[in-house]
Each structure stands twice: as C-alpha cells, then as structure tokens.
C-alpha cells in the first residue's frame, strides 16, 4: 500500500516539477508567440517550423493557381495552425511542407523552384511529416515501425491537403459504410483518406475474412477500430499492438478480469500474451480460440500431460473421451486462479 501511495505521490510530484520547470524555462510565455525557431532550408522540407518572411509568400498566394487544393486544405488542421498562438510567428500552410514559394511564383515552369513530393519515395515524404509529428508518443517509433520498414508512408493513409471524399451510395448494413462526403466519419478527424477499418483492409485484405468469421471482434461493425489495439505508427510491442493499461497487453484494457495478478498465474498470459490461445481478429471457434477443441490447444504445450498418469488408472486425462475433450471444464480458471494451483476455480 505504501508503494502505491509512493507512486501516486511520484506522479503528482513529477507532474508538478515538470510544470515548474517549464514555467521557469519560459515555456508558457512562448505559447503567446515570444519565441520562434530559426533557420530555413529552402531546398529541403523544413525540419521545424521556419520563420515567415523572406522568400515565404503565404498560402493565399498559392490559391490563385492551386484553387482546388487550397479549398480542401483550408478546412484542415494544418491550415488552422495559423490561428494557434504558439505557431503564430512560424511558417504554416502550404510553405510549411513545400518550402518558400517566392521563386516558384516568379517562375512556375521550373519544378526545382518549389519542393514537390512527386517522385519522392515514402520515406522521404514521411520525413517531412515527422519534422513536426515526431516527438508525440504515438509517433515516436514510426522510423522503426513495420510501415516504415515496408515503405508505407504517412501520405499512404493520411491526406495532408484534406482529400475530397466521394458520393454516398448504398452499402452494407452490417458493416460500417464507406467514407463519403456525406458520411465523413473518423476520416475527417484524423485527415485519413478513408475511415478505419476500410483503410487498413485495403492493404491487409486477409483480415476481412477473419473479421467475418462467426466469432470476431466487432471491427467491421465499427464498434472497434484497428487502432484501438494496434498503433499504425509503430511501437515497441510485437505486431505494433498498444499497451492496454500501464504495462499490460492491449486486451487487458477491455478484459479487465484477466489483468491479475493471480496467486497462481498461468504463465502464457504474461509471457506470450493472449494470442497464444486466441485469434483476436476472429475465428470459427468459440471464444475466438485458435483451435476448435480446447484439448488440442492445451496439448500443443502440455503434450506430456499424461505423464502424471497413475498406473492402472486409464481413464484419467484420457483425451480420447468426450469428458476430457475440453480441459477447461475442470481447469475453469485457466487465465489464473486465486484459489487453486491447478486452476480448478
């Protein structure tokens, strides 16, 4: 109990110290625009928001020629940064990513006068986004993530300009409808090209079959999102799963009764995770188990289970009989028990 109090006190103290430290460092005054970053690299995407002036002409100047892009862009969070105090004295809008536009305006025919992302690979494009978006915990591991490794970049999923969405049309009644301009859904919030899960399934097509199995997490129905469990921007966990609560696996966030700790732990829960026994996307088997009979699932680790067999007691753990087809009939507290070392209750 003392340690819990200690942790709480530690959290509050760390928080308070951070605030005091930031206050002392003048962080809050900069919220009102007292400090600006320095340096602009006109030939590469800016690593941090650069100072306006000089060769920067402002987004409105782009509007004259790039009317459609500007129209969509104007309602995005990127465009609204101009209204945020802490961004007030920095370059925002088109030139934040495309670099200063003055030379381009003077000679629009020369593609070298403006930063264009046409022909750039996903990693190069993503570096531009990460100049601002890295540093937030959610994005910190993008450079080491699966998507990065396989050259899937930010703009494969997000539309930095705010993409126009299609017309409404009839769609499935069981699964959430596609994103349209009348049904913008989450796409409008995260500047996604499509709402989840359609976006994720467009590449991970095999998951569609899993999510239509008789037993599945309700992802296609919209009750859950892929990003509830996975962090598409990378992470330290296997399969880029999120942590559920504290250091616990993602499943524990909703399945709190499996969190433990238990007096008698079933080791795989903590060491291998829930997917050692369950197919989290979906399965034809009850409880989304990896095997249709519980016995098979158990013997893949406990294959020498009959080692305990007492001579002359042939019926004990006889897997050929119906009674021992499902180990959890007896070992019902298989996720961990507070009362029995063999998980009987």
């Amino acid at each position, binding site marked *: 109990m003392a340690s819990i109090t200690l942790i709480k006190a530690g959290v509050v103290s760390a928080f308070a110290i951070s605030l005091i430290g930031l206050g002392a*460092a003048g962080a809050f005054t900069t919220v009102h625009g007292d400090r600006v970053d320095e340096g602009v690299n006109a030939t590469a995407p800016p690593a941090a928001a650069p100072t306006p002036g000089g060769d920067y002409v402002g987004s409105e100047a782009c509007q004259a020629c790039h009317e459609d892009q500007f129209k969509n862009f104007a309602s995005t969070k990127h465009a609204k940064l101009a209204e945020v105090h802490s961004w007030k004295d920095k370059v925002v809008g088109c030139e934040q990513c495309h670099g200063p536009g003055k030379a381009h305006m003077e000679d629009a025919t020369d593609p070298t006068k403006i930063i264009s992302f046409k022909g750039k690979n996903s990693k190069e494009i993503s570096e531009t986004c*990460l100049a601002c978006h890295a540093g937030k915990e959610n994005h910190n591991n993008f450079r080491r993530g699966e998507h990065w490794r*396989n050259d899937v970049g930010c703009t494969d999923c997000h539309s930095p300009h705010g993409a126009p969405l*299609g017309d409404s049309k009839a769609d499935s009644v069981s699964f959430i409808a596609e994103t349209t301009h009348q049904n913008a859904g989450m796409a409008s919030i995260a500047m996604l090209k499509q709402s989840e899960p359609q976006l994720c399934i467009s590449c991970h097509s095999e998951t569609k*079959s899993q999510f239509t199995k008789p037993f599945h997490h309700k992802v296609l129905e919209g*009750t859950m999102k892929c990003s509830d469990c996975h962090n598409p921007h990378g992470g*330290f966990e296997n399969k880029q799963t999120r942590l559920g609560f504290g250091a616990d696996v993602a499943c524990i966030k909703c399945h709190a009764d499996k969190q433990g*700790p238990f007096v008698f732990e079933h080791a795989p829960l903590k060491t291998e995770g829930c997917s050692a026994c369950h197919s989290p996307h979906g399965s034809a088997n009850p409880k989304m188990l990896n095997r249709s009979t519980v016995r098979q699932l158990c013997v893949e680790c406990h294959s020498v289970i*009959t080692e305990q067999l007492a001579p002359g007691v042939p019926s004990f753990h006889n897997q050929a009989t119906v009674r021992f087809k499902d180990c959890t009939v007896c070992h019902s507290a298989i996720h961990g028990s507070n009362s029995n070392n063999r998980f009987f209750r």
Partner: protein
Amino acid sequence: MFAHTDKNKKFWRSSLLLLAALVLGLTGTVYSQTPTPTPDPHDGMVGSYRVTATTEIGYRWRSLTGSLEKYRSDLNYKAGIRSFDTNFLMETESGKGKLFDTLLVSNSGWGSDPNGFVRVNMEKTGYYDFTSTVRQITYFNNLINHVLNEHTQDTKNTLGDFDLKILPQNELIRFNLGGSFTHYKGTGLWTTRAYSDEFPVNADFNNRSNDMRVGAEGTLFGFDWGVTGGFRNFNERSHYFITTLNPGNNPANFAVINTLDRTFPVNGQSDFTQGTLHRMFGDRFDFTGKIIYAVTNTTSNMFELITGRDNSNNFVDSDTFTISGQAKRIQTRGDLGATWNVTDNFRISNTFSFDQFAINGAGAFDEALFRRNAIGNPLANSFTRTAGLRVDKYRRITNTIEADEQINNKIGFHIGYRFTHRNSTITGFDAQSLPTVTNTPISESEVNSTHSVLAGMKIKPTKFWAIFWDIEHGQADNVFTRNENYKYTNFRVRSNVNVKDLTFNVSGAIRNNENPSNDFITSLTIDYVTSIRSRFFSTSAEWNPRSRFSLGGGYTMRYITSHTPIILPVGSVQTQGTSDYFVRDHFVYIDGSVKPFSRLSLYGSYRFDRDKGQGSRVSSAIQFLIGSYPMDFTTPEFRAAFRINRYVDWDFGYQFYDYKDIQTPTQNYRAHLPYTSIRIYFGKDAGAR
C-alpha cells in the same frame, strides 16, 4: 434458458432515449453556439457552422430456422428498431468556432443490434481535442461444441473511453486527461470440480473497472518528453450457485451436488507511471526512450458452501471453503529505440526492450467437511488447512538491430538480427497444517537466449505497383511449462497494384513453428515436438471506374496443420499417439454497388466461408486423434436506397445467414433478416449524394 424479451424491449427503449437525448443535446449545443440559430437546410449552415450529417433508423425482421443458440452465439441480431450508421459533423467554415471548430458524433448499432457505439470528437484547434467512445456489446454464448456447453454467457459488456488533450498543437507543452470504464454483467453457466467430478454451476457474472490517467508532454531543451500516471480500480463480484440436484458430468461416480453457493469478491488496484523521451539530433540521429513502472495488487476472499453426496456416496451435509489470497505484481518495462540516418538513403536502427516483473501470490485455504455415510451414520469431521505461495520472477531483454537501404525510389531492402535473453523462475511452496503437516517446495527456473534473423524488400516495378516481402527465421520465447524455445520461420509477401480505377492486392505468408519439449516420459524416450504449419494466401480487387459503379472481390485461403505427439492410455498401457488438427479454410467475397438512376442506388454482396477441416483423413487407431472444425458460412446481402427527395432516402434490404457444420446434435441455422429504414441527409451537399 434465458429470458430476453423484456431486456430487449428495455434495451431499445433506452437506446432510443439515448439517441433522442443525443440529438437534443446536439441541438442545444448548436443553439448555445450561435446568436441567430436558424438552421437553413439548403446551405447546411447553422450559425457559423457547416453541418454535414446522415442518420438512419429502421426496423429489422428476423425469421430463423435451426439452432437459435448457435445463431445468437454467432450473430445475435434481433428483430426490432435499429439505429444504423449515423454521422453528425459540424465544422466552422472560417476555422474559428467559439466553443469548438469541429464536432463529430458517430453512432451505430443501437437497438436490436448486439453491439453499438457512440463516438464523440470535439476539438478547437490550439485549445483542446476531446475524444470519447462508449460501446456496448451484448454477448451470448451457448454452444454444444465448447466445454460441453457448460460455459455459457448471456452478458452485456459496456465500455467507455474519454480523452481530453489540452493545447494539442502546442509544441512546448500539452496536457492529457483520460478515463475509461468497463462493466461486464450477466448470467450464464460455469463449471466447478468437486469429488472427482465436474458440475455445471449457475453464474451471475459481474465485474467492473475504472481507470484514470493524467499526463503531459512537450518539448524542453530540444527533447520531446512525456509523463503519464494513472490508476485502475477493479472489482469482481460474480456469484456462483446450484440450487437443485446436479449429477455432474462423470457418470461413473456417485457425486452429486444439491446446493452450492460461492461468492468470490476480488478487489484490484493498479497504478502506473510512464515516461517517454524523444529527440532528433541534427536530422541524423533519432532517439526514443520509454519506461513504465506499474504496481498491481489484488486481494480475494472466497466463501463456498456445498451440500450433496461425494464420490463414495457419503452424504455431504456441509463442505465449506474459506480461501483468502493476496497477489502483487511489480513490473518495469523499458524501451530504447535509436535510428541513425547514415546517409539520406541508408539507416541503421536499434531497438532495445527490457521487461521485468515479479508476482508474489499467497493464499490460505480452509475446508471444513461434515459428512454421513451412505446409511446416514456420521463420519468423522474433516478439517483441512493448506497454504500456497508463489513467487514468479521474469526478466527478458530483447535487442533488434536493423539496417535499411533505399537504393532508389523503386527498391529498398532491410536486414536485421534479434537477440533475446530470458530468465524466469518460479519458487514457493504448497503446505498443509491440517490434518497433517506437509511442505512441498516449488522451484523451477530457466535461463536461455534466442537468436533470429530478418530481412525484407520493397520493389516498385512501376509507379502503380509495389511488392513487399520479408522473412524472419529463428527462435522465440516459450512459456514455463515447455522450456525449449520455439523454432520458427515466417515469410510474408504482399503486392499492391493501384492503377487509376483499380486496386489489386495479393499477399501470402508461411509460418513454420516447432515447439519442442525438454520433458521426457521416463518409459518412452520421445522428444515431444509440436509442429504447427500455417499458410495463408489472400487476394482482393476493387474496381471503381466511376462514382456510380464499384465492384470488389477477394479470396483468402488459410491452412493450419498442427501435429503433436501425445501419450494416451490404451487399455491400461501408456501408448504413444498423436493429436493432429487441420484448418483448410477458404473465404470468398464479392460486393458491388451501382446507381442505375439518379434516384436509385443498389448494393449487393456475397460472402462465403468454407473450412474443409480434416477432409477425408480418419483416425487409424484410438491413440491417433484427428481434430478439425468443418463448416460453411454463407452471408449474402442486398440493399436498395431509393431517393425520395433531397434529404431523405428510403432504404430496404435483406440479409441471409446460412451456417452449417457437422456437430451432433446439429446446430445449423438459417436466418432471414429483411429490413427497411429511412436515411436522412443534412447539409449543403445532401442533394449531391
């Protein structure tokens, strides 16, 4: 077994009330935001906000033949009013709203659906970003092919998440506040073991958790930092009971339970602190660190009273169990990631992870047994007092070093090496102080290391075509009971073609996994290696030549072959056998939508899943077990949307679910689900749909 009618009515009534309250609430919000709140449906403007919204409410009928239990376990769609997909979006055109810039309310599935959600996103750029999701899942499980149909559930799981970011775009400091809750409640069956028999037990399931978290992140001295602290309270209040004579599963013994009453309250408390640090040094060196320290405690107190007869046919007048336990887990996780951009195209990354936990659990068990023999004479009272202690310690470090080279815009590849070192121990004892004094020490430990290599490549033969593949070969940690490590090979390949109107994907994976044992039967010196081979192949295509027409389809094949040597008693002789398991699953879907006239939009879909299981394979002897789960699941769907006017569509459709397997007794079903609904559009572009 379960009564639903009243609950169902209550559910959709409350859902409608919720929906009405939501709409009223939103309307109230709108009015409170705008001095001249006259909604003009022609331009979709409400004050300074542009409203874009659709909502659909309708009625679904249900006609079912076959197994209601299996249908409800799979789908659980009921007849009644249902709220379909709904989105309500308010955005400022100017980018400056008084209270919010953007408000999005998404909602689906309430009413006669088994799952529903309401998601609210509200933000004002520069000030706050609020996200909340409330979900409810009505879960039903009553299946003859799972745990002898003795683990059933008719439950409701309600979950909520609320997150508020303050100053979300501020680079210097941002604050995060959040809370979550879960509540799982309902009825069903569970099992308990007693007197060499197993008994189905009625259960009132009830557990809940509440989380709170608070944190801040920002930039200080060039470092991006983050601190989060949080706590969770958890409690379990499920109740298990038997009130009528229960003969148990074992026909070969006398044991019966007349009454059982078990309360098993568990209280848990979890606290965590997390810190993150990130910095990009000179555009060349990216560093990320994360550390989590968590302490979780549970206390439990069980009281159980059983009456009946034991396996020797004695009367059990009273068998009481009083068990109390405490467990504590202290866990520290640390992760360090570093990427060095050696050149613009060549990078080296290293990821180091450290995970350590210790679980101390202790329990005290008291049993008081009062019995009479079969003819009613009292037997000696029996008192048993035992105690158990377990200390589980686990430490694992993992280091992965990778290099990736983007040779040009068309070709990139990566190679890597992963090392894992693990140290795990279980110590403790099982002791008895009544009726005799015994003490059995428990001690098990394992220290081992694993090595694996990984490699992959991405090739873009043309602007529209990308191929990825990667391979990983090596070993992975196993659990305590089978201390040898897994040996595995994973190979994945994925191809994406994105031509103007056509998207075509192909992907496949091969996974070979061997799970050896270092345990040997003394009389049978066999290495018990479980071998699991998984294969999947998936392809899909989407064709959208014009906005009025789209066509898509796909095929996924999934094969699993699992082979495990086992020991079975044949007669009274321990005999080596095998347990094999097969999945041979094929899933096909095709869907399309077309708008033949401006007022009519049609959608059709056909999904078919067939698992052939073991096929023609049959067991050649009693010790060779073969398992699989052959089944067919067909789910066609049709929908038509007829445009009545600029703002309203009349929708009608039909869903059909056809399920077949080979279980005995049969649990096949066919469900016909016709429905009709009204979809209402709001906003400037409503007519342009």
